């Protein structure tokens, strides 16, 4: 039996959206699904090493999550890879626009991926967008 596939496209730079994306990716990956994450638009800059930039909260939930010690979304993405073999790809277009290289991104982020390849991957399973 082939494994379930979950494809997660992340374009938002808000804390709530990044958190939900990280939750879906990590829980999906540790529950036996093949998880692919595609980072583009305003989401990608938070994955630049040592950027120390905090994703701004959209609303009350985002503020409360920080106050109440919800798991950090970056840690959840990292655990998705470490514990569940998720693949996290930066969008090659976003890489070019931001003028960064794969080495500038967190170590758990894989090589840049184009939209054609991601769409091919996403055609075979659940697709989530945040």
């Amino acid at each position, binding site marked *: 039996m082939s494994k379930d596939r979950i494809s997660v496209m992340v374009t938002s730079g808000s804390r709530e959206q990044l958190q939900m994306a990280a*939750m879906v990716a*990590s*829980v999906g990956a540790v*529950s*036996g699904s093949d998880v692919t994450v595609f980072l583009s638009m305003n989401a990608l800059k938070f994955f630049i090493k040592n950027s120390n930039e905090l994703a701004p909260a959209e609303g009350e939930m985002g503020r409360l999550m920080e106050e109440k010690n*919800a*798991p950090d979304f970056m840690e*959840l993405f990292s*655990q998705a890879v470490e*514990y569940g073999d998720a693949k996290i790809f930066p969008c090659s277009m976003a890489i070019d626009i931001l003028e960064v290289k794969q080495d500038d991104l967190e170590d758990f982020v894989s090589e840049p991926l184009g939209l054609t390849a991601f769409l091919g991957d996403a055609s075979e399973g659940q697709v989530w967008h945040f």
Partner: protein
Amino acid sequence: MAERKIVDAKNTFCPGPLMELIGQMKMAEVGDELEILSTDQGSANDIPEWINKVGHEMIDSFEKEGVWHIVVKKTK
């Protein structure tokens, strides 16, 4: 009987306790029992779902003084 390891994941939220449990499960031996402590009710509901889905053995689950205890045996 194998030793039971306590995984203290109090004071964080879903899916933090699940991830802490999985991190410890990776290092455990087959047959080991782990007892996860969580103050988050969402995790108390979600962790047994994960145990069933992945196929480990649920040993016990109870709440005591605002802390949920879930005991799982690693089966593979």
